[in-house]
């Protein structure tokens, strides 16, 4: 059953989709986690790069300012010597470097004293105080005045450095706080994503379980329906078997009594009636056999007794019986049998099928016209053909002639005594042999019925194999 396969596979696809969705979700959560982690890292890096560096610079700048003041005072109290002057110059250069570093750090936060301003103060300090050192001996009062003004500027620088240090500390603390905040936010986002994922996964799993359950139920229902159907079909076959069995005895009694009646007195007024009873009850008996065969084939239990037979003698015997049948109907008979090889069939059944075709052909043949039985091997298959020169079958009727009780000529049948099941039986038998039956007919010219059966390949003689191969090449 095709339906069964469909019902059976789909739940798996749904389950796979659900699991796949979950896996994708987990990957997505991982990606989100990585992105958040990166963001936290960036915030942290920024805090370390600027805020902490600012604090450090504040410290360094203050140390440099204090150095300058120290050497300034040295010169003030002890007078300029070459060594002290050198120390002073070095301290000043260091101060300038520290201011440059502050400048390089860039991105000044609000409220941080600007490096340009610091440089301006430092420059003006140096520009005023350095020449005054050279006049230490000549103009002590001017030197002292310049020194006082210089120290005021140094104090200004120191407070600026302290301010930077303080701001650096503040900023570092607040950026650490923002790192904390970023981490917490990232954690919350991650938890939210995972929670969402769990909800989605659970929903998918629930849906999958529901669908699988539903489809399993459907599958079970279908199985049950198929079983019921099979049972019903078997019941029908059994019923027909019972009916035909039960009808057989009354038919036997009916026909027997008519036959005995005919035996008692021939040439009486009742003779034609008794004849009619014999004929019709014989036909009914045959119809019961046909019905039984068809019913059995419907429930796939057409009993075949297959055996491997040589084709030539089988066809010869068949031709002999067909000839009797055909001649009884007043037609002449020709046989063209050229086939050798072996075939696995139920010989009695195949003979039954071919004789049905021969009987049909003879029935519709004009008196004296010939019915031909021929056979060939084509494409590894045995073809048995029965052709007649009867009236032919109209094309519109051809597809229906194998239907049960279908008759082309509705008035003719009763005279011929057929059951209306013959071709249907022939088709059933041939198909039970994995064969095929077909008809070609032209109105006014005749009809050819062909049945083809698979040959036993391993038993085919060499010559036949060659002929078959050639046939294959030509196709």
């Amino acid at each position, binding site marked *: 059953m095709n339906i069964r396969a469909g019902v059976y596979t789909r739940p798996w696809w749904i389950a796979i989709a659900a699991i796949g969705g979950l896996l994708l979700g987990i990957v997505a959560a991982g990606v989100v986690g990585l992105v958040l982690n990166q963001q936290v890292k960036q915030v942290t890096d920024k805090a370390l790069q600027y805020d902490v560096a600012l604090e450090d610079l504040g410290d360094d700048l203050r140390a440099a300012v204090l150095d300058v003041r120290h050497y300034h005072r040295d010169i003030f109290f002890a007078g300029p010597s070459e060594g002290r002057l050198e120390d002073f110059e070095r301290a000043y250069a260091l101060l300038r470097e520290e201011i440059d570093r502050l400048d390089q750090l860039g991105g000044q936060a609000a409220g941080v004293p600007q490096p340009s301003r610091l440089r301006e103060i430092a420059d003006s300090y140096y520009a005023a105080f350095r020449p005054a050192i050279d006049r230490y001996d000549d103009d002590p009062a001017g030197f002292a005045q310049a020194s006082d003004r210089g120290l005021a500027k140094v104090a200004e620088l120191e407070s600026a450095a302290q301010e930077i240090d303080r701001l650096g500390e503040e900023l570092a603390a607040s950026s650490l706080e923002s790192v904390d905040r970023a981490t917490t936010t990232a954690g919350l986002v991650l938890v939210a994503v995972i929670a969402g994922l769990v909800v989605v996964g659970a929903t998918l799993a629930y849906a999958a379980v529901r669908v699988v359950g539903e489809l399993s139920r459907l599958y079970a229902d279908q199985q049950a329906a198929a079983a019921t159907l099979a049972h019903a079909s078997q019941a029908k076959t059994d019923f027909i078997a019972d009916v035909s069995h039960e009808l*057989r005895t009354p038919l036997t009694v009916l026909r027997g009594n008519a036959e*005995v009646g005919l035996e008692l007195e021939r040439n009486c007024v009742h003779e034609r009636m008794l004849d009619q009873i014999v004929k019709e009850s014989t036909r009914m008996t045959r119809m019961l056999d046909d019905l039984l065969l068809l019913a059995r084939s419907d429930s796939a239990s057409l009993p075949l007794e297959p055996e491997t037979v040589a084709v030539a003698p089988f066809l010869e015997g068949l031709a002999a019986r067909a000839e009797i049948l055909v001649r009884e109907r007043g037609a002449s008979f020709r046989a063209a049998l050229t086939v050798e090889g072996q075939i696995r069939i139920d010989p009695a059944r195949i003979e039954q099928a071919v004789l049905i075709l021969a009987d049909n052909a003879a029935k519709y043949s004009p008196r004296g016209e010939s019915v031909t039985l021929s056979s060939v091997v084509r494409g590894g298959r045995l073809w048995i053909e029965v052709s007649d020169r009867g009236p032919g079958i109209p094309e519109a009727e051809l597809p229906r002639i194998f239907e049960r009780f279908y008759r082309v000529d509705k008035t003719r049948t009763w005279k011929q005594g057929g059951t209306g099941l013959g071709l249907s039986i022939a088709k059933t038998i041939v198909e039970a042999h994995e064969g095929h039956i077909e008809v070609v007919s032209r109105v006014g010219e005749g009809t050819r019925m062909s049945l083809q059966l698979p040959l036993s390949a391993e038993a085919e003689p060499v010559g036949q194999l060659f002929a078959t191969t050639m046939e294959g090449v030509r196709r």
Partner: protein
Amino acid sequence: MSAGRVLVVEDDPRIASLLRLGLEVKSIEVTVAEDGSCGREAWVNGEFDLVLLDVMLPGIDGISLCAERRAAGDQTPVIFLTAREDEDARARGMAVGASDFMTKPFEYADLMSRVMLVLP
């Protein structure tokens, strides 16, 4: 003038009566038994040229009855009447010493030609 004596053992009265009628037309003397036990009694006590014996019988079945008579040394010819579907019965019937068998439904002419072959 009797053409022969035939014992018919058949439980279906319709078939039995048809057989009686058909055989009597040919001046054959007919005795009918309706089951295996009556058949056995008639067979043992009578002189018959032929027994028409149904296979499916109430009481004792036809095959067993035939086997029993053969074992007792009785060589009266027997024609079995078998159902068409019961192909196995023919083989079993021939195995216990039947002369012939007829499948039901049978044709009158066919039956008579078989009966005439056996009768003296």
